[in-house]
């Protein structure tokens, strides 16, 4: 995770740290008074998913493209630092299915979780393998 983060991640103030993505609290992240904007939490979860997918590609240079994301919100985000961790549930050649969670004070009390499906575009096409994943649109 040494590559620079995307401009949008920089805008959110994200840092990749030891397998987690940290979003330090900042006023510009607020939506309703005293609460993080839900879109900010979704953005954090998506970036965490993207980084996990890139890490799962190992040495192979690949670009990830979002197919879809579903975010479930469990509680409002407080004016505090937020953490996210993403787990690749299945790493296909072309599609990765990822689960990501975000929390604040306690890892055991997530504020939101996301199911993220990503299209993996590998820069150097290896020998063609039989279709192992449903084709993305």
């Amino acid at each position, binding site marked *: 995770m040494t590559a620079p983060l*995307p*401009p*949008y*991640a*920089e*805008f*959110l103030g994200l840092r990749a740290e030891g397998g987690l993505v940290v979003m330090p609290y900042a*006023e*510009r*992240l*607020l*939506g*309703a008074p005293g609460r*993080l*904007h*839900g*879109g*900010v939490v*979704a*953005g*954090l979860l*998506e*970036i965490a998913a993207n980084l996990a997918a890139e890490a799962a590609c190992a040495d192979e240079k690949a*670009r990830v*493209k*979002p*197919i*879809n*994301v*579903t*975010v*479930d*919100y469990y509680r*409002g985000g407080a004016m505090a630092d937020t953490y996210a961790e993403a787990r690749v549930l299945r790493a296909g050649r072309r599609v990765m299915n990822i689960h990501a969670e975000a929390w604040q004070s306690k890892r055991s009390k997530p504020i939101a979780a996301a199911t993220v499906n990503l299209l993996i575009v590998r820069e150097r096409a290896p020998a063609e393998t039989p279709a192992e994943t449903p084709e993305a*649109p």
Partner: protein
Amino acid sequence: MSATAKDGVKDGPKDSARAIVDRFMTGIPHLAALGVHFHAAGPDWAELRMPYAPRMVAYPETGVVASGAIFTLMDTAAGLAVLLARGRAENHATLDLRCDYLRPAGAGRVLIGRAECYRMTRLVAFVRGVAHDGEAERPVANIAATFMFTDQAS
């Protein structure tokens, strides 16, 4: 940032609707920071606009807009559509939101996010919507979301 943005109110929200829009859209730090503005509204729908800016880019080489920024645009449009359908600026929370990214959002384009609250029960509102970058018939994203009214005992 307000209902008097120069794009104007296409469908003329009534005063109460205008008050809802102002209360939902004005002085929200993240909407100001990202650049999400009111565009148009009706009895159960809202359109917001998000002009392209470098801060919302996913890949500098291509300039394509990050999915999280589109998600934020659509979450906000959906929330506003719920308030308009309810006719009251009362508290609610996003329960879930699914966003399908249909094609990349072109660099330099203004994104329009439109959401419609098509069903409301006592505690839950159902919303659908699309985002496009100029051609409404060629959306860049499609969403389905539910919201829960948090100011009522459950």
